């Protein structure tokens, strides 16, 4: 299946915007992906081996957190999207 790589992570995938991966579950997909591109591991996983809190993984239009996380089954026709979160706002601790 196809895995869409977000702009900031392409520096770790040889500038590829999408990567073909062979897997039956999300866990296998992430394992295959980080085997192909070892530098991605630090970007996706924290030291305890869990997905970083700001990394969202979607199978088609479904968040894996609301499916079966790493055990979520995948079909060849699925598209997996990885999107880091986007948030912020003003506060009193300005840096400029």
């Amino acid at each position: 299946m196809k895995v869409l790589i977000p702009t900031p992570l392409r520096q770790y995938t040889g500038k590829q915007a999408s990567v073909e991966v062979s897997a039956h579950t999300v866990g296998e997909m992430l394992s295959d992906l980080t085997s192909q591109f070892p530098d991605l591991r630090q970007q996706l996983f924290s030291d305890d081996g869990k997905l970083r809190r700001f990394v969202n993984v979607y199978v088609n239009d479904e968040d894996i957190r609301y499916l079966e996380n790493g055990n979520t089954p995948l079909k060849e026709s699925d598209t997996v999207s990885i999107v880091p979160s986007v948030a912020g706002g003003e506060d009193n601790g300005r840096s400029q």
Partner: protein
Amino acid sequence: MALKICRLTWDELRRHGEETYPHECCGVLLGEVDGEGVKAVRAVVRCSNQRSDSLHNRYLIDPHELVRIQRDARERGQDILGFYHSHPDHPACWSQTDLAEAHWTGCSYVITSVMNGSATETNSFNLGGNPAEDENKYFENEEIRVE
């Protein structure tokens, strides 16, 4: 790095912050990086602020919305170049919250100050460093070329 944007899109981005005032607005910048390394913004996509609290000083883009935007942009040969949001009644400068919550390295974070309902200054900041290492992330000022 610089950001290139046409006048119409620029006005649309700034107007969004006026329309959502006194709440923060947020959205996505789409386009491509040209041969000179300039981010050429072709379109902005408005997003709804997913925060259920502190709408006046916090924003959150629904990841599902981002997934759809990223997928649709890719089909048109475009990429996510960055994001924009507003600071109601505060300057157009990044905050510690903005930096802590920024993870799209190499992308632009555009901030518009909206004072008493009117957009004033707009600035762009490029996120540098390693998104996985909080202590190594930084914002750098980025030139905006409105054409």
